[in-house]
């Protein structure tokens, strides 16, 4: 009896302290440190800043103002306009970043050889043009007086268009420029996903008597749904951000705030009028809104998108 008990009695003291595995945490440390210093700490500090009034001068200390920033901002027509514009940016970008690339990817799936490379290069070029270069390029192309586009429009006998000055058109011009740069990326992503669909499914559908459209609707689109959802999610969450460079370089948010979205407004508060409190408040409100949207999408992708293992 005692012989049987003895070994466990010897081993027991060693188990009194749970052995902490140090190595995994050491491996994770650099990443966690970077995440903390550059993401979570600034987020927390912005949150703090949103309850203060501060003009960003190092000599001044931020003055606590409670919820005043939130109350004031929500009452501001400027913010409401920017928020609504943000929605329009996203709505306008969706066809350019999802619908058209999807159509192009499916219509060009049978291209082979040299033609395929040419088309891929053409659609990819806007992606590798630096945003600021694209901004300058489009400002010239769409200039009211000497731009190529207006030149052609005038040549066809139509009145010239004030692409950047007309408040009703300016936002859609910015959407177009942002979307023009995104289209190549989306098309490549969708083409790649389309190319990985097992040809066996398509052959089975042909044997079942499905025509091209039915195959697209019943087989391709469901199997592309994870990629489509990813692109929709990226457009909704980041689309308005991606237009920042063009707004900054071309319209500066004008005319009369017509092209200002929430991200540009945030930047303006912070770095043009030096109201750090307001900027942080707008930032936190945006963060919460888009955070909720992101959660919604994650739930949706688990439910709707089909993943073929």
């Amino acid at each position, binding site marked *: 009896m005692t012989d049987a008990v003895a070994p466990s009695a010897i081993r027991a003291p060693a188990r009194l302290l749970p052995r902490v595995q140090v190595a995994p945490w050491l491996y994770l440390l650099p990443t966690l440190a970077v995440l903390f210093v550059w993401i979570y700490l600034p987020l927390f500090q912005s949150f703090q800043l949103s309850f203060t009034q501060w003009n960003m001068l190092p000599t001044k200390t931020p003055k606590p103002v409670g919820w005043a920033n939130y109350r004031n901002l929500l009452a501001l027509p400027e913010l409401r306009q920017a928020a609504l514009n943000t929605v329009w940016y996203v709505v306008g970008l969706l066809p350019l970043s999802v619908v058209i690339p999807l159509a192009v990817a499916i219509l060009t799936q049978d291209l082979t050889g040299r033609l395929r490379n040419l088309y891929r290069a053409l659609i990819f070029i806007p992606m590798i043009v630096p945003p600021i270069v694209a901004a300058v390029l489009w400002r010239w192309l769409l200039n009211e007086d000497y731009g190529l586009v207006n030149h052609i429009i005038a040549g066809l006998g139509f009145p010239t268009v004030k692409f950047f000055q007309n408040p009703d058109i300016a936002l859609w011009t910015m959407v177009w420029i942002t979307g023009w740069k995104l289209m190549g990326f989306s098309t490549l992503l969708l083409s790649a996903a389309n190319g990985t669909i*097992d040809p*066996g*499914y398509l*052959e*089975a*559908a*042909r*044997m*079942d*008597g*499905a*025509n091209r459209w*039915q195959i697209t609707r*019943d*087989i391709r689109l*469901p*199997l592309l749904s994870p990629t489509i959802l990813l692109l929709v999610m990226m457009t909704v969450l980041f689309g308005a951000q991606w237009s920042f460079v063009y707004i900054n370089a071309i319209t500066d948010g004008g005319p009369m705030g017509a092209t200002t979205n929430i991200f540009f407004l945030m930047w303006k508060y912070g770095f043009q009028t030096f109201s750090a409190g307001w900027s942080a408040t707008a930032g936190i409100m945006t963060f919460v809104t888009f955070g909720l949207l992101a959660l919604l999408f994650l739930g949706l992708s688990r439910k709707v998108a*089909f993943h*073929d*293992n």
Partner: protein
Amino acid sequence: MTEIAISQLRKEFAGTAAVEAVDLSIRSGEFLVILGPSGCGKSTLLRLIAGLEDATGGRIQIGGTVVNDLEPGRRGCAMVFQNYSLYPHMSVAANIGYALKVAGVRRAERQGRVEDVARLLELDHLLDRKPGQLSGGQRQRVAMGRAMVRNPQVFLFDEPLSNLDAKLRASMRVEIKRLHRRLGTTSVFVTHDQLEAMTMADRMVLMNKGRIEQVGTPQDLFRRPASVFVAGFIGTPAMNLVPGRIVSDGTLVADGGWRLGGRWPLNPHTPVTVGMRPGALRLTAAPADGPVFRADLCEDLGSELHLHATSAELDLVVALPVDARPPSGPFGLTVEPEDLHLFHGETGQRVDPLPALQGDTAWQMQPSFT
């Protein structure tokens, strides 16, 4: 009644012929198996019938209609794919019913027909599952159901059992044959497994390098192989193929000076290939002239023994009953002339013997070993 007539069919991929000069007529209600090694063009031939590949030349008729330019879905064929190709995002019911859906069959009727097929295949409790949640055998059955639901004129099977384990394969083989007996639909079944071909086929086609080597019943191909290729491909263990020639007195001599019987319609000095089934060889005492063999290796399969016999020139496999004792010393081998298969050395084509003469006993050279 749906027969398939194929004439002078040809398919090229980038200038290389995958299927060449194929003439084949498949009878209505027949279960035809296309057999061949990998790369012989058997799957391509099936896909040409299905319409998944366009023929480079020749003509395919199904039920009297030329279908070369018809879309796969309009040829009246249903196909079971090697990896089943079940639509992964659809339930079993939707998979089976998809052909009816695109054909515009109303939902209520569709549901009824799907349930009928599911009941027949014992899938009725799985209708709501996705293919990813099914076992290999169940997926196989769903693929069958998807083919059956349209009441097609022709079933095409592209190696449908090769992804199953041996036991399941044997039972699915029986199941498919039962279904065929019940439905009586013309079926074309592609496989590289000769056991599958021999057991399932009404008639079989053996293909090699894009061409048909022989068409016939499994017994035809086993008993009267038309070429060296057929002889070597069909049968386990494989037929012993030995080079030889017809000598000046008209008798057949295999390598190693092995005088074999039979009377052959060939000129002296013609090179030939002699085929002998392992089961047709008999052990004798070591002969004075002709090859002397030694036992190299003996494999016990449980049901029979496979003895590897070697002489100076020859390596042969002899099938023996399990109760036989493999010889420890040197021995000889004989074979009855009617069990010999002779092939022309240059063309590889079968040569049939002349009818034996009365009292011709020249071939009885060795006393029996037993």
